[in-house]
């Protein structure tokens, strides 16, 4: 009994400081987020007054603000479309390889570790007038492209970069999902004569549905984190059409010093991402956890 009490003291002397410390850096900003979103807090003009829902009205009525939500959504859809298809086939391939799997896995995971900012600057320099991206165009017999004036090319490079970086992690998740499909089911299916394509459509994909849902939602959540490619490659060009939501928050808050208004955009992001996270907890049933544990 006495031992139990001593244990409790030890445990609490670990847990209480970390919880208090953590809440200090979490709860306070959380309250600030909602408070400043209904003010016109501006560091430059030194205003800090309550303005009600004015900021929110502005976000949902002025095209330049709500369109950045739309841009984020479009980019998310594109990334997910390419990333999931490529990642799925990559996982299938990696799953079939019998030997030397770990080398391949290392190879494919490397992009996930490389600095997004440097990679963005990398592309940005290639697209400059003196950069060499146009050499390829000329070699193919075309005229030099002015990349920054083209919505297509700006989207192309942003989506390319993010898909490239995310491919390894998507494949790791898909592999965990594949490993969760028990071999007995495949055996039973092959006795029933299901092979190749049919096996994929009727067994693998349905059984992977929770994992597919999980990856999809994680991808959408990830789209709210996109910053560097827009800041360093397009800077929103052309005409603000590639401004994603985080870039909008950054420019409003730190270039224009409108911290109150930027807080309101943040609250919108907060609500959307929180809803997605909750949705993810619903689709992620115990199957995925099992699959992850069985993954290796």
């Amino acid at each position, binding site marked *: 009994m006495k031992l139990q009490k001593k*244990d*409790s003291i*030890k*445990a*609490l002397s*670990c847990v209480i400081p*970390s*919880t208090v*410390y*953590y809440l200090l*850096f*979490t709860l306070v*900003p*959380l309250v*600030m987020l909602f408070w*400043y979103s209904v003010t016109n807090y501006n560091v430059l003009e030194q205003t800090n007054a309550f303005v009600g829902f004015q900021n929110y009205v502005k976000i949902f009525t002025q095209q330049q603000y709500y369109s950045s939500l739309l841009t984020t959504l479009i980019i998310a859809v594109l990334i997910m479309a390419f990333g999931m298809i490529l990642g799925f086939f990559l996982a299938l*391939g*990696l799953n*079939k*390889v019998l*030997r*030397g799997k770990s080398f*391949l*896995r*290392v*190879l*494919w*995971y490397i992009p996930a*570790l*490389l*600095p*997004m*900012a*440097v*990679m963005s*600057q*990398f592309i940005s*320099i290639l697209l400059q007038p*003196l*950069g*060499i991206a146009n*050499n390829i165009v000329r*070699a193919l017999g075309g005229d030099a492209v002015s990349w920054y004036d083209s919505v297509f090319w700006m989207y192309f490079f942003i989506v390319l970069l993010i898909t*490239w970086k995310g*491919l390894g992690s998507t494949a790791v998740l898909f592999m*965990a999902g594949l490993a969760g499909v028990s071999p007995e089911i495949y055996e039973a299916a092959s006795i029933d004569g299901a092979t190749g394509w049919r096996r994929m459509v009727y067994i693998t994909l349905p059984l992977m549905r929770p994992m597919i849902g999980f990856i999809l939602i994680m991808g959408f959540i990830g789209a*709210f984190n996109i*910053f560097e490619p827009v800041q360093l490659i397009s800077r929103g060009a052309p005409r603000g059409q590639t401004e994603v939501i985080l870039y909008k*928050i950054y420019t409003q*808050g*730190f270039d224009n010093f409108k*911290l109150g208004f930027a807080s309101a955009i*943040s609250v919108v*992001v*907060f609500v959307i*991402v929180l809803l997605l*996270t909750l949705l993810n907890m619903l689709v992620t049933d115990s199957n995925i956890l099992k699959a*992850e*544990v069985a993954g*290796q």
Partner: protein
Amino acid sequence: MTAGRTKNAILYTALAVAGLILLYPVFFGLLGSLSTVSEFYKTIILPIPHSPFRQFVANYQLIFKEETLLRALGVTVFKMAWGLIITVPVSVLNGFVFAKMRFPLKRTFFLVLMSSMMIPGPAMIIPNYIWMARFPLMGGNDLFGSGGTGFLNNPLMFILTGWVGVYNIFLCRQCFATLGNEMNEAAKIDGAGFLRTVFTIYMPLITPILAVMFLNTFVGCWNDYLGNLIYMPDARQWWTVGNAFVNIMAIFADSSGLTAPNHPAAFGVAFISMVPPIVAYACVQEQFTKGLAMGAVKG
């Protein structure tokens, strides 16, 4: 049997080749940095260096003359080391306590900590900034957070913030929970103290999670970009390498200045930025993969 092996070999080669294509930027950076300026401008797919060794010396000498880069490297190494020194013991200790000990309000504490994991990161950038700028009694601030600049532009921020990572605590707890209690009992009988039990008996058993923490800290610190822009806006001397690389690349590739642009040097900088994460990953790869399998995959 042989058909299967041939098939495997073909698949393996295809995936390896595709993987190498994926690493195109790494090769481009390396070959670019070994080229002369005029060789670089002729590039179509990859730069073709003719005197790689001479250019290697010339270009990298130029890069490492950049004092901002060397300083940023120092700051980054310090930040990484400090991050590991603090977060690893804190996470291991808290993870152990939540997995293996009984104490009042355990569930409440755990739920409070874990629920904060659901708070969306990108939404917190602005309020985190305001809180850092208005932090009481820091950087000339009074008790109510006005008058000074708080933690902004202040390297004390590296040292005093970010001690407790809920995600890392969660990982450690999950991993400790799978281990038996026998060692705890045995250690107690042998008279080993609490800290000794945690750090010398239990911690070595979760090396995969330690590998995940190491790599996440390493890569997080090396790749940080937005954090420097926001928290150290007027203190470039405290920027980590992420921003230093980007800025030096821009300077080397700048065609509006007095000196002619030097693209090979710019891509040399890019190449330098790619090497340490790859090396760090290669070193802990085996343990890291095991860690992912233990559920760290959601990071």
